[in-house]
C-alpha cells in the first residue's frame, strides 16, 4: 500500500537517513511516498496542518514530538498508536522513557519517536587555540578564561549565528551546565517563576553575558556558517547541537585532533533528549491504516534504528542497539545517555509559544550589549510565569 510520508529532512545526510526508513518500509511490501519539505517550523508546519484540516491527510508525518502536536490529538486528527506500542512493547525498549511520555496524551500513545538530538555541545577549534597560544579548554570556565587570548589573536571566541533559535539554544545549554539539571527542570518543567528570577539563574545570565561578549564579531547568520568559523579557526568555539558534527566531518576534520567536543560544556555532562517523532493522521482507508501500523513498527525496528541514526548523526531511541560504527563524540553522547544523565528538551517542556518568546528575548539579549542580564532575567521570569 502506498503511504505518503511528509518530513523535513532534506539535506544530504538527512535524506540518506530517511532513505533507510523507506527501504525498510518498502521491504514490508508497502510503498513509501516521499513528501519532503525542508524548513521545519515556519515552512513545513502550516503545510502539514493545512493538509490535516483540509481533509487530505498524509499517511504519516514527522513532527517535533512534544507539546506541538497536542492540539491535533485533541482535535481527533491523529491516530492512537497504543495498540502497536503495546504489541511492540515500546514502553520497555524506548530509552529514555521521557521520549515516549512526550508521545502520550491521556495515557494513549500518538507518536513514534525515532531519534535523539542533543543540544549540549561545545565545539572547539584546536587550531584557534594553538594560534592564540593557549591550551584547548576542558570546560566552560577555561574557555571564558581563554577568551582574551583568542581575541588578541583576532579570533572570535564564541561563534553565535544571528538566527534567534541559536541564541536561545545556547542559553539553554549554559543553563544546564551552570545551574544544573534541577534548576532546569524547575524552571522549564514546573514553570517556577521564582526560581527563574532567583540567584541560580542570575549566574546563568552572567555567563550568558560572558557568552555575549565573547560572541561579538560573529557576523554570520546561519549556524553552519558559524560552525565554519570554528572549522577554519576564525572562531574558538560554538555551542551547537550534535548535528554540527556533520559539518566537521564534511570538512575532513577529525574529532580530538582538529576539533574538540565538550558535551554539557564540559561542566555538567547532561544532554537533552529532544528529537523527532512520527505521527499518523486518522485515515478513512482501511488498507492505509494497516500500512500505518506497519510503518510505525518498522521505524522502531532495531536494524532501521541503527541504519537511520548512523546516517543522521543522531542517537537511537532504543538502548538495545549496537552502534559500533559511531564516532568519538557520538560515543560520548551514548555514554551519557546510558548513564541516564538526560533531561527533556525545551521543545517538550514548553509550548511553542513560550519557546518563541524565549527566542525573541535571547536573540535580543545576545545582539544588544546594552541590555543588562538583570533586565533579561526579569523578562525571562515573566515569560516563565505566563508559560503553560
Amino acid at each position, binding site marked *: 500500500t502506498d503511504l505518503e510520508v511528509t518530513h*523535513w529532512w532534506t539535506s544530504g545526510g538527512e535524506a540518506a537517513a530517511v532513505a533507510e526508513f523507506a527501504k525498510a518500509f518498502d521491504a514490508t511490501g508497502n510503498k513509501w511516498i516521499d513528501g519532503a*519539505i525542508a524548513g521545519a517550523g515556519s515552512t513545513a508546519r502550516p503545510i502539514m496542518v493545512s493538509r490535516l*484540516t483540509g*481533509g487530505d491527510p498524509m499517511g504519516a508525518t514527522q513532527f517535533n514530538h512534544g507539546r506541538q502536536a497536542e492540539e491535533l490529538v485533541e482535535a481527533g486528527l491523529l491516530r492512537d498508536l497504543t495498540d502497536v506500542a503495546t504489541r511492540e512493547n515500546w514502553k520497555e525498549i524506548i530509552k529514555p522513557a521521557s521520549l515516549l511520555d512526550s508521545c502520550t496524551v491521556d495515557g494513549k500513545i500518538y507518536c513514534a519517536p525515532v531519534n535523539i538530538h542533543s543540544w549540549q555541545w561545545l565545539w572547539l577549534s584546536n587550531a584557534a587555540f594553538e594560534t592564540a597560544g593557549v591550551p584547548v579548554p576542558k570546560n566552560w570556565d577555561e574557555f571564558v578564561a581563554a577568551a582574551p587570548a583568542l581575541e588578541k589573536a583576532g579570533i572570535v571566541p564564541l561563534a553565535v549565528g544571528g538566527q534567534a533559535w541559536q541564541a536561545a539554544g545556547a542559553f539553554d545549554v549554559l543553563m544546564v551546565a551552570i545551574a544544573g539539571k534541577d534548576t532546569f527542570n524547575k524552571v522549564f518543567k514546573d514553570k517556577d517563576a521564582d526560581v527563574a528570577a532567583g540567584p541560580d539563574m542570575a549566574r546563568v545570565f552572567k555567563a550568558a553575558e560572558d557568552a555575549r561578549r565573547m560572541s561579538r564579531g560573529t557576523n554570520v547568520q546561519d549556524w553552519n556558517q558559524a560552525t565554519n568559523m570554528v572549522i577554519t579557526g576564525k572562531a574558538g568555539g560554538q555551542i551547537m547541537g550534535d548535528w554540527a558534527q556533520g559539518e566537521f566531518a564534511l*570538512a575532513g576534520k577529525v574529532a580530538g585532533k582538529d576539533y574538540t567536543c565538550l558535551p554539557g560544556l564540559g561542566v555538567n555532562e547532561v544532554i537533552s533528549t529532544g528529537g523527532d517523532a512520527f505521527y499518523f493522521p486518522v485515515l478513512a482507508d482501511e488498507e492505509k491504516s494497516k500500512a500505518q501500523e506497519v510503518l510505525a513498527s518498522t521505524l522502531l525496528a532495531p536494524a532501521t534504528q541503527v541504519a537511520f541514526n548512523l546516517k543522521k548523526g543522531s542517537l537511537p531511541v532504543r538502548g538495545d542497539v549496537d552502534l559500533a560504527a559511531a564516532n568519538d563524540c557520538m560515543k560520548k553522547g551514548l555514554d551519557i545517555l546510558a548513564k541516564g544523565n538526560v533531561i527533556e528538551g525545551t521543545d517538550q517542556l514548553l509550548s511553542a509559544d513560550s519557546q518563541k518568546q524565549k527566542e525573541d528575548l535571547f536573540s535580543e539579549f545576545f545582539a544588544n550589549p546594552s541590555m543588562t542580564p538583570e533586565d533579561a532575567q526579569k523578562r525571562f521570569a515573566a515569560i516563565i510565569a505566563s508559560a503553560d
Partner: protein
Amino acid sequence: MSDSVTLPAPAATARAGAEPWGAKPRRALSGRNIMLYGTLLVAALYYLLPLYVMIVTSLKGMPEIRLGNIFSPPLEITFEPWAKAWASACTGLNCDGLSRGFWNSVRITVPSTLISILVASVNGYALANWKFRGADIFFTILIVGAFIPYQVMIYPIVIVLREMGIYGTLTGLVIVHTIFGMPILTLLFRNYFSALPEELFKAARIDGAGFWQIYLRIMLPMSLPIFVVAMILQITGIWNDFLFGVVFTRPEVYPMTVQLNNIVNSVQGVKEYNVNMAATLLTGAVPLIVYFVSGRLFVRGIAAGAVKG
C-alpha cells in the same frame, strides 16, 4: 553603438563642410549618450553584483567556497553543482534534483497565469469601462485584500476549498493563485484601461461591439505592455511560489520550488552553497526567459493616432 546616420556622403561634403544638413547625426560619444549609458551601466553593475557572486559561487567547489572570498573567480571551474542541482540533488528520497518538479511547475504556472490574468483583466475592464453600482465597494475590499499577508488567509482558504471539494487538486491551486493575483492585477488593468481614450470605447460601442468584443478586439490589443507586466508579475510569482504549491497540492504535483526549498532550506543538514546558487539560477531561468522574450511587446505610443484633442 555605431548608429551614426549615414548621410549621402558626397552631398554632405558638397554642402558647406560642417554646416548642419539633413538629419542630425547620432554621435556615439555625445554628452547625452555618455550620461545615459553611463547611468545605465552603473545601475546595471549594482544589479549584477549579486548575480556575479551567485554565478561565481555556483562554479566553485565547496572547499573553495569555505575559503570565503566571495568575489574571486573560481580557481577551478566546475559544473558539478549545476548538474547536481538539476539532476541529482536529493529531495528526501528522490535524488533527481530540480528536474523533477520542472514539468509540475509548468503545469501549475501556465493555467494559473493565464486564468488569473484573464479573470483580472476582464474584471479591470468591467470596472474601468462598464461601471455599475457597487462595483467600487467590491474593488475597495479587493485593494485592502492586497495588503493581507497570504499566510493569514491559508486556513480560511483551506476551509473554503475543502467545502468545495477541490482541496488538494490542481483546480484548487489555480483558483488560489487567481484569488491572490486578483487585487493587484485588477487594479493594474483597471487603471490602465481607464487611461485609454474613452472615445475608442465609445466608437466600438457605436460599431455594434458588445462587452466581450470590445474587450477582445479593442482593449486587449492596445494593452500589450500592461499584459506583459501582468505576465511578469504572475509568472514570477507563481513560478516561484512555494507555499501554495505545497499547501494546496499533493506530492506528485509539487512544483520545482519545493525542490529548491529543500535544497536550500535544510535546517540542520549541511549547506552546499554552490548547489544552492545553481539551483536558484536554474529556477529563475524560466521567468528570466519570459522577461527577455516579452520585451518586444513593450510597444511605444500604443494609442497614437487614435483621437484628436
